[in-house]
């Protein structure tokens, strides 16, 4: 590899050919401020349009300042990162961006988490010297995501996520010059587009231009209504990230504190989506085994691979882009929806509360869950199984609003019967987790033997596409895993071409799985945060006494008292769904 010698701020540095000034500088501990630039290490995600010009530096011999994020180093280059000229230019750039920005920081949803606000603060901007026209663009509200394009700074991060990572292709820069905005084709609203609501655009937006629909107000109203019984479920990935909103180290598990906080907020019962994840394994695992056994027996009508169906953005993705494959995914509803369905039947009967008076709130790492809960097939006579789906961030807002000292809370336990879960359920929160949980149960049912081991390291990791073969006592089961819809697309195209070698495939839309969901605390481009959350999820699994879904005693009881057996007629009615051609 050709190496390049240069100096940055008079420090000599040797880096491979093709390295950018930004990367070379960070390698020797020199931090150059960036705004539009984003890189998620080890995940193949990089956005460097060189558009904002905040990272400009002086290069000796060049007349103009150079953007560090997209200028490659050359032999003998002399770079100065913080000359008066560079710093002034940086501040001017930010002032110009602010001159066309609604300065409503006090009430902006992104306040405190905004990269632009941070940059203005960092550069000490106290006055905007440029007055001029301000962009006006209509607000676009969908079931999950709000676009306030007046706040867009054209960093193009959302475009990178939507096109390069997710290959959904809804967002693109359109129009020209002052009128340029990021928008769907023909500037239609998101809810008319093929948007999957994965929320990765929201996860990376540096400003308040893209945010989730905030339903905290509606939840507070429900909590204060004496005629309502309000219950809550929390998704696995939430407990591995919520602490970050309260200044705790990424990867801190806050399960017990989260339960305590929800109880203090006034929820009548604090339950766990993990319970429903165990239920999902029973339903999806049984479906897998039924299809697999028939396939092995030579039934030509059986379609394999079976695909997981927990992720609502993924479901919407294949409904739009691969409708001809809509018979392949498992018909099992997602854990969120299974929980809602069981809560409003089995549990409502148990506590003798009418469906209309039972409000189900879910706390999700996801913005697509808002859309999922609004799908008409998940409601009965207009009453949705899940009334409100809040993101991890929205829960943090509620806790702050309630003035609850989160860090000082004791650890409390979930309520029963919908709060008991196994280690298999909690790993639903990370890529590879759903299929590992399914393997733990399917193996024992298929072979009739106890698993020789519980940790399937071959299914874990952060590679976008992974495959492994698990030996089901002599029958090799080929498993594929994809996270990020771009990776999912590759596996789907293989299936379309009849080239897929897999029996089962797990797909999660967000990079990293739910731990990297669009509703999680903002990672601000630090992929390390996702890895720490993933480690937290696996440690929660290891610490559980029961680690196989079919051994959850409350699941056994639910089948005995109510559902009968997995994939029974009642299970099908309450826990399964069908998919639609949206192409």
């Amino acid at each position, binding site marked *: 590899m050709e190496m390049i010698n240069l100096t940055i701020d008079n420090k000599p540095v040797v880096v491979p050919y093709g390295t950018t000034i930004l990367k070379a500088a960070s390698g020797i501990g020199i931090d150059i401020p960036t705004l539009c630039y984003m890189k998620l290490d080890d995940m193949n995600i990089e956005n460097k349009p060189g558009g904002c010009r905040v990272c400009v530096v002086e290069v000796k011999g060049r007349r103009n300042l150079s953007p560090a994020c997209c200028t490659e180093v050359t032999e003998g280059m002399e770079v100065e990162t913080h000359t008066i000229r560079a710093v002034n230019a940086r501040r001017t750039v930010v002032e110009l961006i602010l001159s066309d920005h609604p300065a409503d920081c006090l009430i902006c949803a992104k306040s405190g988490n905004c990269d632009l606000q941070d940059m203005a603060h960092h550069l000490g901007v106290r006055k905007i010297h440029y007055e001029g026209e301000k962009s006006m663009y209509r607000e676009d509200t969908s079931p999950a995501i709000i676009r306030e394009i007046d706040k867009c700074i054209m960093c193009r991060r959302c475009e990178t996520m939507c*096109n390069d990572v997710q290959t*959904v*292709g*809804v*967002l*693109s*820069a*359109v*129009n*020209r010059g002052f009128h340029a905005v990021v*928008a*769907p*084709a*023909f*500037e*239609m609203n998101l809810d008319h587009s093929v948007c999957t609501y994965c929320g990765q655009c929201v996860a990376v937006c540096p400003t308040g231009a893209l945010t989730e629909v905030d339903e905290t107000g509606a939840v507070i109203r429900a909590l204060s209504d004496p005629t309502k019984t309000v219950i809550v479920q929390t998704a696995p990935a939430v407990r591995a990230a919520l602490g970050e909103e309260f200044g705790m180290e990424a990867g801190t598990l806050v399960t017990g504190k989260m339960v305590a906080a929800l109880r203090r907020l006034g929820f009548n019962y604090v339950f766990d989506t993990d319970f429903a994840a165990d239920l999902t394994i029973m339903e999806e695992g049984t479906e897998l085994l039924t299809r697999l056994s028939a396939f092995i027996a030579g039934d030509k009508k059986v379609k394999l691979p079976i695909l997981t169906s927990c992720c609502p953005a993924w479901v919407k993705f294949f409904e739009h882009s691969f409708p001809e494959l809509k018979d392949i995914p498992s018909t099992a509803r997602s854990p969120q929806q299974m929980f809602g369905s069981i809560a409003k039947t089995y549990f409502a009967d148990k506590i003798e509360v009418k469906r209309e008076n039972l409000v189900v709130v879910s706390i999700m790492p996801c913005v697509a869950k808002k859309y999922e809960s609004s799908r008409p097939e998940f409601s009965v006579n207009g009453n949705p199984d899940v009334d409100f789906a809040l993101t991890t961030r929205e829960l943090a807002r509620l806790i702050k609003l309630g003035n609850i000292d989160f860090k000082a809370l004791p650890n409390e336990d979930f309520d029963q019967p919908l709060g008991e879960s196994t280690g298999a359920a909690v790993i639903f929160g990370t890529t590879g987790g759903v299929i590992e949980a399914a393997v733990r149960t399917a193996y024992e049912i298929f072979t009739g033997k106890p698993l020789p081991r519980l940790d399937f390291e071959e299914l874990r990791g952060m590679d976008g596409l992974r495959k492994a073969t698990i030996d089901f006592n002599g029958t090799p089961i080929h498993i594929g895993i994809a996270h990020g819809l771009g990776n999912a697309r590759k596996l789907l195209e293989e299936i379309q071409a009849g080239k897929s070698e897999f029996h089962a495939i797990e797909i999660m839309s967000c990079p990293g799985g739910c731990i990297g969901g669009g509703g999680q605390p903002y990672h601000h481009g630090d992929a390390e945060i996702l890895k720490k959350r993933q480690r937290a999820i696996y440690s929660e699994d290891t610490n559980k006494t029961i680690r196989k879904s079919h051994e959850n005693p409350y699941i056994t009881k639910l089948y005995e008292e109510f559902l009968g057996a997995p994939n029974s007629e009642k299970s099908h009615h309450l826990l399964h769904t069908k998919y639609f051609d949206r192409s």
Partner: protein
Amino acid sequence: MPGIKLSEKTIGQIKTICSDFGNQGSELINVLHQVQGKLGYLPAEVQEVIAKELNISVAKVYGVVTFYSYFTMIPLGEFPISICMGTACYVRGSEQVLAEFKRQLKVEVGQSTPDGQFSLNCLRCVGACGLAPVVMVGEKVFGRVSPQMVKNIIADYKEGTAGEAKSA
């Protein structure tokens, strides 16, 4: 979306143009150029076909169509009027000429008259600066145009069409 339905023939034409460029996404601008040359404009439905053929997102296609002022999503009039806004024409009063066209036709730049006869656009330098200010109607060039001449230019074409319509 405005609901126009493309004929099989039109779709075939678009597909042929796309395949002439190897269905390469990188050839998008060339494809748009050719398709607009053939159809006169690039409505949403056409962009959707192109996106599918070139395997790129419709949003990207729309992004390029809206970036370049040459591309239009509005059908050109039977007589597309272009006023040169290049430096020479501009200093010799093309802005007043444009204003007079807008006033006479009651349309803005980039629009067509409701009867589809005229559309109004600006362009940059046609290389006839000696004749500034220059107006083009279709392929025909009018030189040293003054606002007073605008009414007659339009009238000539209006009468011309009336004649053609009779003979057709």
